[in-house]
């Protein structure tokens, strides 16, 4: 047991899984609002989507605070170190059963590809989706003339940004769900994200592979 390394702390796991559920729920309700299909019923879809959206933003705010308070934000600083070897690994090495180019630990839990993609999500996609979502929620109130300087004369740009961001998030979700299976074993990454620890059995297997 003493070999087990804590990779994902309790808050991180809470944050990750809550976010996962919220994003999937927001996608399900959001695309119903977009008239892609019918399931919850339009009014329910909007009500649920609005509530989940507020929840998502609340979670983001807490997560931002946590990342700065703990200094964990540095995990997302992009690096070119090992970047090429990771690209090569996912394109070629993984089929030849080559080992992962690096091992994650609590100091560097993300590989350089993850760092890049997650940073992109955090700096571009999430702010665009959450920001446009806020405008979507509140644009009506300036519309009534109460706050003229905040008036949005067209919802179109807000809605289109929100939709585009949603498509990107769903795309990310698909790739992310698949990449879960590319750890040392099929379920290694999933287990780590649930328990927070690298599974020593998987580690052993990984070192045997070496």
């Amino acid at each position, binding site marked *: 047991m003493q070999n087990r390394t804590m990779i994902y702390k309790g808050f991180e796991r809470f944050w990750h899984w809550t976010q996962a559920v919220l994003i999937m729920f927001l996608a399900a309700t959001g695309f119903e609002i977009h*008239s892609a299909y019918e399931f919850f019923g339009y009014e329910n879809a909007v009500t649920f989507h609005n509530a989940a959206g507020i929840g998502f933003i609340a979670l983001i705010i807490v997560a931002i605070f946590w990342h700065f308070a703990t200094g964990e934000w540095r995990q997302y600083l992009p690096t070119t170190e090992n970047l090429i070897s990771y690209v090569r690994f996912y394109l070629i090495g993984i089929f030849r059963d080559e080992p992962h180019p690096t091992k994650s630990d609590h100091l560097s839990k993300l590989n350089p590809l993850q760092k890049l993609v997650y940073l992109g999500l955090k700096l571009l996609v999430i702010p665009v989706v959450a920001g446009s979502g806020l405008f979507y929620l509140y644009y009506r109130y300036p519309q009534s003339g109460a706050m003229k300087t905040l008036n949005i004369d067209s919802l179109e740009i807000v809605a289109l940004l929100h939709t585009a961001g949603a498509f990107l998030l769903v795309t990310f979700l698909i790739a992310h769900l698949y990449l879960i299976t590319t750890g040392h074993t099929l379920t290694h990454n999933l287990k780590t994200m649930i328990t927070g620890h690298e599974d020593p059995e998987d580690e052993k297997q990984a070192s045997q592979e070496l």
Partner: protein
Amino acid sequence: MKKPVNILLFVGGLLILLILSRLPYVTEPDEDLKELRVEYTTEHVPSVDHRKFAVLKKDFSAPQEVTEACISCHTERHTEVLKSAHWNWERESYIPGRGILKAGKKNLLNNFCIGIGGSEVSCTRCHVGYGWEDKNFNFDNAKNIDCLVCHDNTGDYVKAIATAGYPVPDVDLNAVAQNVSLPKRANCGSCHFYGGGGNNVKHGDLEKTLFSPTKDVDVHMAIDGPNMDCVVCHEAENHKLQGKMYSVSSMNHDRVTCEQCHGEFPHTKSILNEHTVKVACQTCHIPIYAKVNATKMSWDWSTAGKLRDGEPYTVEDEDGNHIYRSIKGSFTWAKNVKPEYSWFNGTADHYFIGDKVDTSEVIKMNTLNGEYRDRNSKIIPVKVHRAKQIYDCCFQLIIQPKLYASQEGEGGFWRDFDWHEAAQKGMESAGAPYSGNFCFVNTEMSWPLNHMVSSKEKSVSCKECHTRDDSRLADLDDFYMPGRDYNSAIDFTGVALIILTLIGVILHGLIRLVSNLNKRTKN
């Protein structure tokens, strides 16, 4: 350790504020409705008994004598009526591009019976006066005010056909004069339900069914519901009634609104209250109009004038609606009609006699102003009445034909069936020119719908508007509406991205599977 806690508290406080700010201003609607019900079902008890007045017992030889008797006690009321739109059939209005002018039936044309000029004797059956036979009528003579048509509570006072507003000769003026009170819906309805020459011809949402409708027809006037009279909402002060119809009105004041009783945020669900910034109550709560009797949807004047054996004739459909009349042309009717929708900021423009209009587009007899970007605009339901009507193709003017005449040879189309004569006489009465060349052009007129309010269960549902196909608001394309609108490039790219990613991960997975199997077989 203290610092992060402070920050958490700060962030938490912000969050609570954010969530609180999402809560709508909710009053208790059910409580409100209860109060309203109590308020509006209280019977009006008159403070005097008109049967006891000697002045109303004398022998009346003319209806004007009744008016004089009224004025002898209500000494100043006539001055109020003389200023009213019911009397003058016009209002002083400011219309952008035209300035301040008087607008009303004297100088506006519609696409039903077109205009009153030259036909006054017939049209003024619905005037609150006696003797408006032509444009020389004296609008300052209070003796000609018809008090009874609005205040009769016997139901026996009827104005005669084509006698410039006089009552039928056999009406018992003493009985009527002694039974006057606040106007009932029978008074208002006797004119407002029959505009355009028959029941429900014009409005679509105002017709004889409203004398005693069920809740299914109108939740307010329902006899099995609050049973509200017209004047409950259309309150009057000094004979100036609230409410107006934009077939003849132009300005955004003195309107009757749902909000005056129900408030601006009447729903318990904030998702519904959020709509009220841009959507009028009527839009969701009047899902269909002409619920009982059909309303006229189109009128083709160009087919008028056909005779059978030298006589005018009428053709009816199975419900008894006229579909052809020699004097008027061809009509279409519809029942349970879904409204069309329009942005509206409470101001309107009209076709004034003498306005030059070209025929490159359908001519609008009235224009409801408004658009999405206009903060005073809301989406309202309208009945659009479409017509083909007579037009001076040289001078580019809509023609007001003289329709009614008491006998043949006076130029009235309804007697002589001669468009040239009718155009000549009608335009002459308006002081407008006529070139001698006429044709028929397509016109449209929008009638905002305000009555026949349905119960909340029958209101328009989300998906009737927020849908890609066949949205009720399909024609209002100047704004983005969730569920209806999308950007095809973004949706195409997005879907393509998702499909490509799926293909990518499936391929990647398959190759992994295959190489894994290979490795095992080698081992």
